[in-house]
């Protein structure tokens, strides 16, 4: 067995060579013989009843394949959680990008004109566009009260803390929608054969979500639906649920035409019609003692879910559990709700609710510090969660975490105290104002509460005829390094070189359901299962007498070859079992919310230019504890990339809404950071340990999305002494607050 550790080493990315040579195959790089191109005709109104559909003049309609809701053989829903979202609107429409009918033609250049030539006449119904209108029930547009889901967390006796408090600190915080903006637009190819059923190839995160949706839609058994993930050019949550919709559309066209059909969205369709991060509002009311200890508080959290339930309940759950952050709350009440508006449904985006509630909390902590008269550093130190204490859901912290140590290291690396002092002096005379801001936070790894238990993920490892080993998972690669890290884990478990382990393409005919590739669960949860399944392969070979307890890679290869030659290919399976001490009560929202948390402290150094009113970041320090770092280069890439998206969320990316429709669905007017816009992003890891994940690893992908927004806005306030409690914060917002309002420390909410 090799003595060299493979986990912890930055081995080459499995699919890296294909990516740097342009050979990697994304869905739009694939063509099938006789293939048609598909397009989607969408609603023009936010809410209404379809009266008539007219196919206008000048188009050879007889050359087109046309699909409407009537062509659906199974249920007209995109099956996910609540099954309320139709695949094609039939009668009622609930948002301005709702698909109504589908067109396909051999010449893709003829599709845009054809889509334009379909006109739909509606009886318009009054619509709801804001959270306030939805809560006030100005119209009931979903269910009995426009509410998708509510949660309530109660710990201790909150009603009794107010009279004991030296200070009661209140605040309201807002976050806007954010587009995932993966550079590869959504796309799908479907092919239908009456014997084989339906096959789709696409850009997607969760093969078995698409599989489930197609089974319900086409009324087909599991073995007649096959979903294959192509190389996927970024996802960030944006390809968690909507690919089921596009696969459904391509499948309907393929079934009706009897030919393969490709649907590729252009950038505008992708931006305006598919999901974005949920906009949110958080209200804090906190009781604090004169020495800065949190005595208790009420947190009200609300997200705008858009027109259908989709994943809002799950996003809300994560936001709720993260609302108390990395602090000890002896008493707390959290009331959270997800509500409906007539906009396209909001959905999964890296962080999944946590960036919203943590933005509010980390801005609020700075406010508490001001009221009490302590520094942002000191207020946090006095309230950090410590091992042995309980979180807001009464989960005992068992990890040996030391947030003070992370904070001290971040302060030192960023030269926080010295710079803060220097900037205070320099800001008196300078036209540019500089500030320092920090955020301390945590992020739960894996599915919330009972989620992992309910998923019951399965992983396989296969011994192959050539003596190599192959990992079988539905966990997908879309940039994070899934393929690489899972192969590292299997190689380490077997004591084999990394090169001896391969991973199968995520194809539902080939791989078991290892769950969706979301929630920072792949390395920690799926990785642990890969480790177990790999050990099963070794045990099989030892039990067959083909391998000793100690072996060289060559001996392993030979043993594996003989096993396959005599008994055929062999596989070892591992299924998730919840650790015995993990308890969760779904009704009371109490217990072990996550098997492990990642912990972090981020520091932003910001300059606000009082000529242009732009805020720019000069330095960004990110210190985090994510358990064992299995691949340093990939891990650093995840953190830096997440921080860049967080900076975009804070200072650049604003979705402009009008009547429920995104108005700026282009890269020219929805601005993400370029290489010239970003600061040096300095990433540091602490390894304090984790018992649950593979080789001590925890989740990492979502964590870096949580910290940038509050750290940056805390720094902006430090620089200009104006309190901004809403993101995105654009130059016009700063201008308005500093020049138009002229009320220091009273700018309040700028939307």
């Amino acid at each position, binding site marked *: 067995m090799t003595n060299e550790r493979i986990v912890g080493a930055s081995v080459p990315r499995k699919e890296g*060579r294909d990516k*740097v040579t*342009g050979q990697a195959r994304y869905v739009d790089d694939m063509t099938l013989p006789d293939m048609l191109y598909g397009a989607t005709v969408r609603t023009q109104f936010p809410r209404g009843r379809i009266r008539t559909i007219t196919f206008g003049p000048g188009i050879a309609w007889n050359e087109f394949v046309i699909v409407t809701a009537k062509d659906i053989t199974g249920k007209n829903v995109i099956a996910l959680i609540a099954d309320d979202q139709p695949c094609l609107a039939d009668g009622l429409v609930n948002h301005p990008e709702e698909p109504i009918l589908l067109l396909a033609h051999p010449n893709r*250049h003829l599709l845009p004109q054809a889509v334009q030539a379909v006109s739909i006449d509606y009886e318009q119904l009054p619509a709801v566009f804001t959270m306030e209108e939805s809560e006030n029930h100005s119209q009931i547009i979903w269910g009995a009260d426009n509410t998708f889901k509510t949660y309530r967390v109660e710990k201790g006796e909150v009603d009794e803390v107010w009279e004991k408090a030296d200070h009661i600190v209140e605040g309201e915080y807002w976050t806007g929608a954010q587009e995932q903006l993966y550079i590869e637009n959504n796309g799908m190819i479907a092919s239908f054969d009456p014997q084989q059923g339906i096959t789709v190839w696409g850009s997607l995160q969760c093969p078995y979500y698409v599989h489930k949706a197609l089974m319900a839609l086409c009324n087909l058994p599991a073995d007649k639906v096959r979903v294959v993930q192509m*190389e996927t050019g970024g996802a960030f949550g944006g390809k968690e649920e909507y690919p089921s919709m596009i696969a459904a559309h391509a499948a309907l066209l393929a079934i009706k035409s009897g030919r393969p059909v490709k649907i590729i969205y252009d*950038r505008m369709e992708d931006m305006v019609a598919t999901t974005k991060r949920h906009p949110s509002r958080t209200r804090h009311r906190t009781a604090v003692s004169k020495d800065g200890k949190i005595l208790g508080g009420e947190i009200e959290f609300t997200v705008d879910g858009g027109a259908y339930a989709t994943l809002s309940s799950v996003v809300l759950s994560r936001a709720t559990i993260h609302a108390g952050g990395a602090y000890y709350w002896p008493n707390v009440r959290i009331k959270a709700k997800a509500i409906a508006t007539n906009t396209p449904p909001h959905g999964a985006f890296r962080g999944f609710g946590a960036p919203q509630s943590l933005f509010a909390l980390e801005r609020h902590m700075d406010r508490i510090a001001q009221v009490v008269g302590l520094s942002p550093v000191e207020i946090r130190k006095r309230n950090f969660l410590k091992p042995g204490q309980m979180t807001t859901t009464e989960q005992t912290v068992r990890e040996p975490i030391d947030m003070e140590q992370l904070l001290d290291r971040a302060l030192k690396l960023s030269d926080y105290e010295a710079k803060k002092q220097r900037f205070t002096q320099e800001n008196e005379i300078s036209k540019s104002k500089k500030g320092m801001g920090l955020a301390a936070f945590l992020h739960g790894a894996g599915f919330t509460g009972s989620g992992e238990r309910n998923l019951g993920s399965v992983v396989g490892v296969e011994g192959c005829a050539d003596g190599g080993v192959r990992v079988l998972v539905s966990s997908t690669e879309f*940039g994070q390094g899934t393929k690489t890290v899972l192969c590292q884990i299997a190689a380490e478990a077997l004591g084999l070189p990394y090169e001896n382990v391969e991973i199968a393409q995520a194809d539902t005919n080939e791989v078991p359901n290892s769950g969706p590739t979301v929630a920072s669960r792949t390395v920690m949860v799926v990785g642990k299962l890969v480790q177990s399944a790999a050990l099963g392969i070794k045990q099989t070979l030892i039990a067959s007498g083909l391998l000793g307890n100690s072996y060289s890679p060559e001996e392993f290869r030979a043993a594996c070859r003989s096993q396959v030659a005599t008994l055929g290919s062999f596989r070892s399976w591992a299924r998730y079992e919840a650790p015995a001490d993990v308890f969760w009560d779904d009704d009371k929202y109490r217990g072990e919310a996550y098997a492990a948390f990642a912990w972090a402290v981020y520091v932003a150094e910001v300059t606000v230019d009082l000529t242009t009113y732009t805020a720019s970041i000069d330095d960004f320090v990110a210190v985090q504890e994510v358990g064992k770092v299995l691949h340093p280069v990939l891990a650093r890439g995840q953190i830096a990339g997440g921080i*860049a998206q967080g900076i975009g969320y804070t200072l650049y990316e604003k979705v402009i809404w009008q009547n429920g429709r995104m108005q700026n669905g282009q890269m020219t007017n929805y601005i993400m950071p370029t*290489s010239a816009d970003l600061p040096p992003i300095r990433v540091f890891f602490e390894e304090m340990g984790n018992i649950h994940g593979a080789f001590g690893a925890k989740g990492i992908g979502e964590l870096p999305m949580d910290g940038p927004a509050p750290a940056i806005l805390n720094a902006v306030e430090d620089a200009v002494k104006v309190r901004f409690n809403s993101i995105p914060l654009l130059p016009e917002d700063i201008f308005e607050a500093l020049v138009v309002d002229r009320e220091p420390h009273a700018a309040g909410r700028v939307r």
Partner: protein
Amino acid sequence: MTGSFSSRNPAPCDLSLTVNGEMKTVRAYPMERLLDVLRHQLELSGAKEGCGEGECGSCSVLLNGALVNSCLLPVLQAQGADIVTIEGLAPGPQLDRLQEAFLTCGGAQCGICTPGMILAAHHLLRRKPDPTMDEIREGLSGNLCRCTGYVQIFEAVAEAARRRVNS
């Protein structure tokens, strides 16, 4: 936007261009995008469409040594030109130094911007063999990456420059 050029330009014509060192003749509408001709007629799918309007740079190719967005370029303008795509950067089994450096430094995550980004970096290093960090930052600012935060891309370009200068 793929648009309706066919109705405005009814007659396809024969065009010659050199692609990755080979002379090619294509029959295309004059206003057809170079990107589509490369991807659909010449089966070079390394150039990607990210936005279709020249913002993201994932369709970048070299045209007579200049870095261009092939989604904005009518193929007529490539008549007689020398085009290099990612497939032509290192046609043999040996990778180009930039490709090597992108692999080792983590410059490629999802890979969709990578072909364009590597060509932009190649273009930069031809003009500035030993660029400063600010020159790298500026030189790649026409190519968007949503995965990396650019940090490891900068490191890859600096590493490739070091290998070039040292060799």
